């Protein structure tokens, strides 16, 4: 009979769960208010529908955007610090290499990719590493277009004000794309949603 090693750790440590939801709230607030700000002067040939925006008009949207900004900034710094020092990034997020990725992408496309609570497969690692990077670039370009004179070196790094604004918009689309995939996967594996709220034990390695 096969013996399983019992794991006692939670699928998601409490700090990760708290930072996940605080960050999710801040990111969604910033995205919806950002759409209202974008609508004031659209740089691409589309606008976001009013019902999907936050703030009512430009000033309201900016007030939401620069309020949630502090929440995201604090939450993001705490998460990066935790990720590096607790081993969370090394253990869970660091991409596993091309072979594992090819295997898991193939399995995912064939709807054969399993999911074990507390373990991150290669597709998840790539998506989470990608969205963390996109969020870092998003915050940096946000600061660059908020303070193009006081933080001129940062704006210059992104190629000037119009370029930084464009990258800010492109990163938003990346984050929105991640969110869509993320929500579909949560809908397919609803227990992952429970594990991000309640303390569920991590499952055994395959």
């Amino acid at each position, binding site marked *: 009979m096969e013996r399983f090693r019992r794991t006692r750790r939670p699928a998601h440590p409490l700090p990760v769960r708290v930072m996940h939801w605080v960050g999710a709230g801040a990111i969604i607030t910033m995205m919806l208010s950002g759409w209202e700000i974008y609508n004031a*002067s659209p740089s691409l040939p589309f606008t976001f529908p009013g019902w999907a925006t936050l*703030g009512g008009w*430009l000033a309201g949207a*900016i*007030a939401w955007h620069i*309020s949630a900004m502090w929440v995201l900034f604090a939450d993001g710094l705490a998460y990066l610090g935790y990720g590096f020092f607790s081993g969370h990034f090394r253990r869970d997020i660091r991409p596993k290499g091309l072979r594992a990725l090819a295997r898991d992408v193939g399995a995912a496309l064939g709807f054969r990719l399993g999911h074990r609570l507390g373990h991150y497969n290669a597709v998840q690692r790539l998506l989470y590493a990608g969205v963390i990077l996109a969020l870092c670039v998003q915050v940096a370009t946000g600061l660059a277009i908020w303070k*193009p*004179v*006081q933080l001129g070196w940062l704006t210059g790094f992104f190629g000037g004000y119009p370029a930084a*604004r464009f990258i800010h918009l492109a990163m938003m689309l990346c984050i929105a794309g991640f969110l869509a995939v993320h929500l579909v996967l949560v809908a397919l594996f609803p227990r992952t949603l429970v594990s991000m709220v309640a303390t569920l034990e991590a499952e055994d390695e395959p």
Partner: protein
Amino acid sequence: MIRDPVAKRAEVAPELARLNRRNFLRHGLTLGSLALLTGCDLSTHSGIDAALWTMLRFDDRVQAALFDRTRLAETYPASAVTKPFRFNAYYPVWEVRPVPNNWTLEVAGRVTERTPWSVARLRQLPQQAQITRHICIEGWSQIGQWSGVPLHVFLRRIGADLRARYVAFKCFDGYSTSIDMASALQPQTILALDFNWQPLTPEWGAPVRLRIPVKLGFKSAKNLQSIEVTNRYPGGYWENQGYNWFSGV
């Protein structure tokens, strides 16, 4: 002859109720509401709007702390000037006011020399030219050329109290705005008399406008009528409606 109303109230009441329900439904479905929040746009007396105003004040303090008077806005070559230059005001271009007869620039508040200024007298002061980026709060930006009197030169000339907190601007088109003293003394902040090397025309702010490249565009007030140095928070046309007061860049 008095005609009957086209529709009686009782006839349209059910329709109105249905429309109201539909509106309610639309608001109820708003993602950002997460329903109640969409009503929060700085115009109500809700607790959330009060919290947003508090955050705007906090943001003002952070921006003032970040501000360094010696940091200069990037300048550009003449070839980078945006053409055509975009008109912007709180009204459309056909409502631009001509300069009033006998116009003079008034100075008030914490200053020792209160004589109003004519354009000719302003032109006798030291002049500075700049090609800088005008960044609108809406996100778009354009590069323009302005020249005129550095505001720090003007403020010293009128004996302004340079430790006062605010410099307020009133315009003859009904507009108003205000800035902090540190930004007023930044060397690129000018009272512009020329735009694209030509004397200002009314749509670009004649006869004198503020040009302040370390603030968002709406702070660069056009068609000035008076300048006041004060310690009492002056607000402004957009600021009173919810635009972030400091709005530094």
